[in-house]
């Protein structure tokens, strides 16, 4: 009997064992299926994400990139796009960056260059190509771009070369920015106030395709002002520019169409006097700018005056003091506006222009009838003259209030049409001024008109590419005072972190025993 009872029990346990084994096997199978599903779904999702991202990036990456910057700083303007459209089909302008295209160029000098060049490629319909070739790895590129070796490209690593039908131009990336030179002098830090990238590249392409029509020489060696911006401006007008160093002898080259003395702080030499006088008499054109700044308060410019007196102009050794509040800027007597003389009102879209630290210009007592001389810019009727005292403060000198000339124009009456513009402020030519106000400023428009009046340029160069301003990051000096800066430091670096840390300590102490 007991055997009979035991038998079914044995069978039950055997059945249970079989069932358990079956369940276990089932569980294992299910686990395996779930594992396959889990791993498979992860892999499939990863593949889909990778594929979708690659396709999106490669096919639509550029199309789905939008420039929402206020100045549209990363794309070319319609002016450049129209220039590209105007080029005949089959035109091939090759832009080569003499470096490897960096994967990351944020906060580098290429930040506002590479995206704009990409846009040139995008909008040129194949007429412009951009490549990045490291000269160290591909030295053949130097020979390929410049077979004659006239540009010494080996020394221009990091620059851009623009090549068209064997003609070359080179662009230093740094010149694609307007730098705040005042801020640089004060703090030794570079702050870009504007982007010239499009200005530089479009003008360079235009010069290569259409050729320069004129050449301007900038006199150097007289402690003159920086001329980078005015050179950019001229290049944009189809005028080639070159320096003329007086320290190695002074001779005006035959191909000089325009001679520029930009903010000279030293007087010209006797030789220069003779050369420039002859040059103008023979039909040469010149622009001369000086001012009354700490660098030249002791300079009376006797030789320059000797030259200008021939043209009925005299540069006085003092400063224009603007007493009319309607003309003053920021309530400054030496930073003001000047009226444009009636004959020159077409040169600008405004009636007054910005002048700073100007010297008075006057007509010479004994007029030279060979020259016709006229005022171009004048002060208000309330202007007087002052000199800087030993503390560099303006000291009024005896002078009745009246209109003072700030810029004058003189031309020879012979058939050669030599002429000269004299500015007694550097606000029309210097980097100091344009680094603040960029080439979009009205003063830039005015000097362009002056140049055009002397060197009629072809209409094909009359395109205006605005400089894109970048100085929106500058805080108002009235509001961002040292007191405010200190308060910012105390609140954001001390008070708030200390309060939050204290909260952490309180919470920790309350909860550590829970």
């Amino acid at each position, binding site marked *: 009997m007991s055997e009979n009872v035991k038998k079914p029990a044995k069978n039950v346990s055997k059945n249970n064992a079989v069932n358990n084994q079956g369940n276990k096997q089932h569980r294992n199978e299910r686990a395996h299926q779930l594992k396959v599903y889990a791993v498979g779904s992860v892999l499939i999702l990863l593949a889909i994400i990778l594929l979708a991202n690659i396709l999106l990036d490669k096919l639509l990456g550029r199309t789905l990139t939008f420039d929402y910057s206020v100045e549209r700083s990363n794309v070319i303007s319609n002016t450049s796009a129209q220039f590209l459209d105007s080029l005949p089909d089959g035109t091939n302008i090759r832009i080569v960056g003499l470096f490897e295209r960096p994967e990351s160029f944020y906060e580098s000098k290429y*930040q506002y260059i590479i995206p704009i060049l990409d846009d040139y490629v995008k909008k040129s319909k194949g007429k412009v190509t951009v490549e990045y070739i490291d000269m160290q790895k591909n030295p053949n590129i130097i020979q390929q771009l410049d077979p004659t070796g006239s540009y010494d490209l080996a020394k221009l690593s990091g620059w851009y070369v623009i090549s068209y039908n064997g003609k070359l131009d080179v662009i230093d990336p740094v010149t694609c920015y307007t730098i705040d030179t005042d801020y640089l002098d004060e703090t030794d830090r570079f702050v870009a106030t504007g982007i010239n990238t499009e200005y530089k590249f479009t003008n360079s392409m235009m010069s290569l395709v259409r050729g320069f029509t004129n050449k301007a020489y900038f006199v150097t060696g007289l402690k003159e002002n920086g001329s980078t911006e005015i050179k950019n401006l001229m290049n944009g007008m189809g005028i080639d520019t070159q320096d003329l160093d007086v320290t190695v002898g002074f001779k005006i080259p035959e191909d000089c169409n325009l001679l520029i003395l930009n903010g000279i702080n030293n007087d010209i030499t006797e030789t220069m006097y003779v050369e420039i006088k002859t040059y103008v008499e023979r039909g040469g054109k010149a622009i001369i700018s000086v001012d009354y700044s700490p660098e030249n308060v002791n300079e009376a410019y006797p030789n320059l005056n000797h030259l200008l007196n021939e043209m009925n102009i005299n540069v006085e050794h003092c400063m224009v003091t603007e007493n009319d509040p309607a003309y003053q800027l920021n309530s400054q007597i030496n930073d003001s506006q000047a009226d444009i003389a009636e004959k020159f009102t077409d040169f600008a879209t405004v009636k007054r222009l910005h002048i700073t630290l100007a010297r008075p210009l006057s007509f010479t007592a004994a007029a030279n009838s060979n020259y016709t001389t006229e005022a171009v810019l004048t002060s208000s009727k309330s202007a007087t003259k002052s000199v800087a005292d030993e503390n560099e403060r303006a000291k009024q000198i005896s002078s009745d209030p009246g209109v003072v000339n700030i810029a004058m124009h003189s031309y020879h009456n012979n058939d050669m049409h030599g002429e000269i513009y004299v500015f007694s402020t550097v606000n029309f030519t210097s980097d100091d001024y344009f680094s603040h106000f960029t080439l979009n400023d009205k003063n830039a428009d005015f000097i362009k008109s002056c140049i055009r009046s002397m060197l009629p340029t072809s209409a094909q160069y009359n395109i205006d590419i605005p400089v894109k301003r970048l100085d929106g990051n*500058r805080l108002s000096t009235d509001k961002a005072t040292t007191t405010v800066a200190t308060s910012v430091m105390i609140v954001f670096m001390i008070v708030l972190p200390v309060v939050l840390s204290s909260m*952490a300590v309180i919470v920790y102490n309350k909860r550590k025993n829970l």
Partner: protein
Amino acid sequence: MQAIFKREFLSYFRTPVGYVAMAIFTFISGFIFYSQFATGYVSMSVEIIMLRSLFIIIVPIITMGMFAEDRKRGTEILYYTNPIELFSVVTGKFLAAMALYLVMFINVFIHMIVVAACGGTVDAGVIGSVLVFFFMAALFISIGLLASVLTDSQIISAIVSFLFILVIQLLTVIGNYCGTAVSTIMSYMDIASDTRNAVRNAIAGAISWFDPFAKTELFSNGLFSVSALVFCLSFALFFLYLSFRILEKKRWSQK
């Protein structure tokens, strides 16, 4: 998901974690802001872009306890035994961390108000930078969350997410190194320099393609790239799904 989000978000303020993360963020963002303010030039885009490098510190702090803490307390079992979607749990915790980031970011919004009041600019570039900041925060939080799912220890979780984010931050550099290394090896095999350069560039390009920092850096110029945002979002989704799968595996492999 709402309950998880609420519980998780409030837990940051019931423990020192949230306050410590906020204190670090406030101090460093304040330092960057003041450094610019003192010079008279403030670019909020630069501040926000610089703050991206803080992910490596902040993300491990706020994500290390997400699942590891539950495991330590034994409350993790509730996720497996209650009839709730594990993906909701993952999403709830993820959104809570994002919300904490938003709270921390109030600090930067105050900086923007100060800048605007002082005559500075808050333009499209700044908005782009904010957008990128949160998309990248989403990516890195999802990575930190995955690290928290993988391990029982908060410390190990923090180290794993720290390393992961560090590698991502260095992807472009790593790509260049790998490319150069392969190119050097090929030079021993007398392979032509053009081929070597092509391979080096291809390797460097392929690795650095995954670098979200490089992809998004031009947002601060006001240049919005949809593909960069899709990249951050899609990989954040992937890491969240991976975390969910690992939790799901734990649910069905419970014995």
